[in-house]
Structure formats: structure tokens, C-alpha cells
């Protein structure tokens, strides 16, 4: 188990934990601007090319997108439960919920990978394999460029998150955390929930569009 003394630059473990959380919040602020700018770009083009975006989005796979959102929302629950039990010193449950979180993240990657293959097969990859259907014009490619860039960056974030959660699970298995030292759990938990938040907005931008019969 880790020593209960804080690092030399901190007066108490509580101050150390709070500082680590503030550091993650600062990082999240930069991420908000990164994904926020992407979504703003999407909004400009969606308003400008309303009908073409509606046609393009009709080919997105809302079932896969919905399953993935359910997986990520559930993983946020398992992550916060892991933190909860870690702070209470229930090490067995901490490890179990961290592994559940990583598993749900891997399921997300699996569904996303399947969706990417389907997207490729249906001719939805600009510059590589893009099928212009009747009524399609150039802006339909813009929708799919947004789709690949935004979901690609998000998938990268999920992959990093899975690695961090699995590292925590290993450290928890080695009994590194205790009711007095759980700062890494809180910090990675913030990151994981933020990645979940990004998907919520990407889902709203990509999947519900172009399905209503008008």
C-alpha cells in the first residue's frame, strides 16, 4: 500500500487530491474547446447545407450509435461506483467495477469498429470509398468528413481511457489505493466521464438527423 504522506510540495493529501483534480479540469477545458470547435464547424455546415446533410446522415447507423451511447453511459456509472468503493476501501469491488468499465469501453470499440466496416462497405468514406447516390452533391461528403474526424478523435480518447482504467485496475489489484489515497481514481474518473459527454454531443450531431418521414 502507498505511503500516506503527501508529496513534498503539498501540505496534506486532501490538497494533493484537489490539485490533481484541478489539473484534470484544466485539461478538460482545453478538450471542451477542441471538440466544441469541431461541433461548431458542423453546425455552420449543417445550417448552410441543410438538405444535403439530412440526406448524408440518413446513412449513419443509429442502432450502433445508440448501443454505443448506452455502453458509455453505463461505463460512467461503473466508473463512479469504482471510485465510490475505492474511497470506502472496498478493494475487491473497486477492481471489479474498474474491470467492468474497461470491458464496456472495449465493447464500445468493438461496436465502433463494426460500424466503421459497415460505413466503408456502404461507401461512406470520403476520398477512399465514397458513393454519390442520386440527389447527392459535394456537401454530403462534408458530413462524412465531420463524422470520421470527430468519431476518430473520440475513439482515440476512449482507447486512452481504457488503458488508464486498466492501469488503475492493476494498481488496485496491487492494493495501491486506500480511503486516504484515491487521487488517481478521481482524476481518471473525470477524464472518462468527459469522454462520455463528448459522445453524447456527437450522437446528437450525427445519428438522429434525416430519419423522419416528411
Amino acid at each position: 500500500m502507498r505511503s500516506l504522506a503527501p508529496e513534498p510540495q503539498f501540505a496534506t493529501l486532501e490538497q494533493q487530491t484537489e490539485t490533481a483534480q484541478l489539473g484534470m479540469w484544466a485539461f478538460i477545458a482545453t478538450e471542451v474547446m477542441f471538440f466544441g470547435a469541431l461541433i461548431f464547424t458542423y453546425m455552420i455546415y449543417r445550417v448552410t447545407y441543410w438538405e444535403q446533410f439530412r440526406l448524408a446522415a440518413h446513412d449513419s447507423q443509429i442502432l450502433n450509435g445508440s448501443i454505443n451511447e448506452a455502453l458509455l453511459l453505463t461505463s460512467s456509472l461503473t466508473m463512479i461506483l469504482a471510485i465510490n468503493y475505492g474511497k470506502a476501501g472496498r478493494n475487491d469491488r473497486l477492481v471489479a467495477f474498474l474491470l467492468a468499465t474497461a470491458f464496456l469501453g472495449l465493447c464500445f470499440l468493438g461496436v465502433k469498429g463494426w460500424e466503421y466496416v459497415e460505413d466503408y462497405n456502404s461507401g461512406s468514406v470520403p476520398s477512399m470509398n465514397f458513393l454519390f447516390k442520386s440527389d447527392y452533391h459535394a456537401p454530403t461528403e462534408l458530413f462524412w468528413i465531420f463524422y470520421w474526424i470527430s468519431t476518430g478523435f473520440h475513439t482515440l480518447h476512449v482507447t486512452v481511457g481504457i488503458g488508464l482504467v486498466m492501469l488503475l485496475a492493476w494498481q488496485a489489484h496491487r492494493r495501491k489505493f486506500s480511503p486516504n489515497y484515491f487521487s488517481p481514481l478521481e482524476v481518471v474518473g473525470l477524464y472518462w466521464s468527459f469522454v462520455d459527454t463528448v459522445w453524447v454531443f456527437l450522437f446528437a450531431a450525427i445519428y438522429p438527423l434525416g430519419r423522419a418521414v416528411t
Partner: protein
Amino acid sequence: MSVGKPEPIAPYVIGWAVMMLLLGLSVLSAYLDIGIFHPVVNFGIAATQAAIIFIIFMRLRGRPSLKWVFAAAGFFWLMFLYGISTVDYATRSGFPSQ
């Protein structure tokens, strides 16, 4: 390791259930003919889900603290980006249409 009593899990489970319900509403709304209100409904649902995640799952609830300032900073600067960029596009002539 000393074993203590964990926080009540009810707020987290309820928050998760509400978000799953909102996901269902979002999917349902996709098949409703609500015209130009689609983006309003979809992003409104997303913003509600994000608020639940930030307040409950990222623990922004409770007494005011410095992390509120850090959490708000990103959105504060994002509003500048959105505001100035919107003015640019709204006043630009010759932006290509369909």
C-alpha cells in the same frame, strides 16, 4: 486497508436511468417530423445529459469550489469562439450555398 461505508449509490443510479431515458427520447425524436426543431431537441437532450454527467458523475454538486471555475473556463472561452465565429459567418457575403 480499512473498510468504510461508501456514499449512497442512488443518485448515480437515478442519474444513469434518466440519461438512458433521454437516449431513448433522442432516438424516438429522430423519427418524428418536427422539421427545423430537430437540432434544438437533439442538442437540448444532449445538453441535459451533459449537465447530469458534469453535476453528478463529475461531482460538481456540493459547496462552491475552485473546480467550478476550472470547469466553467472551457465553456466561457468556447462562448467567445462561438460568438465571434457566428458573427463572422452571419455577416459574410458570398458564403457558398447549395
